[in-house]
């Protein structure tokens, strides 16, 4: 019944995860970093759905629902933290948050 091989589907999910990872590592704007984390969550859920469809079991979809709940909680707390960061530092640059660093002079 499946005409697209599972490898290609998993390859697609892996590419999506890779893009989220690259975005998280490259961008310094903290909103973009949170968006990249969302992409990674989504691709992880896609892998669960692929596996559930491959074996015809419900477990994959149940796990996706849990991932959805975790993503919603994570986004609400993360966005509240971003708001606090903006109130305190007046910036969205993640590199500005280096108060706990040892030598602030030669940072970045």
């Amino acid at each position: 019944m499946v005409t697209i091989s599972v490898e290609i589907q998993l390859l697609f999910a892996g590419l999506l995860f890779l893009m989220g990872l690259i975005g998280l590592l490259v961008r310094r704007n903290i909103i973009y970093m949170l968006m990249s984390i969302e992409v990674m969550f989504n691709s992880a859920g896609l892998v669960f759905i692929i596996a559930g469809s491959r074996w015809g079991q419900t477990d994959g979809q149940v796990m996706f629902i849990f991932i959805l709940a975790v993503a919603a909680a994570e986004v609400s707390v993360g966005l509240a933290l971003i708001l606090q960061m903006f109130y305190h530092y007046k910036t969205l640059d993640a590199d500005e948050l280096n108060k706990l660093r040892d030598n602030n002079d030669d940072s970045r």
Partner: protein
Amino acid sequence: MNTIFYIAALVALVSTVLAISGRNAIHSLLFLIVSLLAVSIIFFILGAPFIAALEVIVYAGAIMVLFIFVIMMLNVGLEKEMENKWLRPQMWIIPSILALILLVDFISMLKGMQYSKIQGQIVLPKQVGISLFTTYLLGVEISAMLLLAGIVGAYHLGKQKKKVIHRFLDKKEEILADEPE
């Protein structure tokens, strides 16, 4: 059927690249929504219609609206120029083209096949619900607690405090104020 999968996958990849490489946060959010819609088409192809609906409702609906609210609240100093830019039509061309491709994709999929010909093995919402509330009941309760913690945490962190002084420093100030007398 295969071409529909490949088109949706291509749209998802392209719009994700555009989303994480964009300069304007709102445009990136538009691309991210298109990417989520494409992934939900893939869920539908893979035989998970319930999850495809949840993806559109929760991800593209609720979570992205949260992002939009925060970006609007922060509004990092360029509001006038931003609004002028948003009103220009050329900003909307690429997202609309991608969304249009998805729409054509979806319509052709609905026309070209019976429901039973969806690829992969279809897992219907009823089975998912039964499994969710018997085998995974503990997980449901734990995720309910997680969501409660998320609500409380977001409320607590979202309050705008004027100044944060540790109680030790607070007492020290009192002691210092008392000393001259």
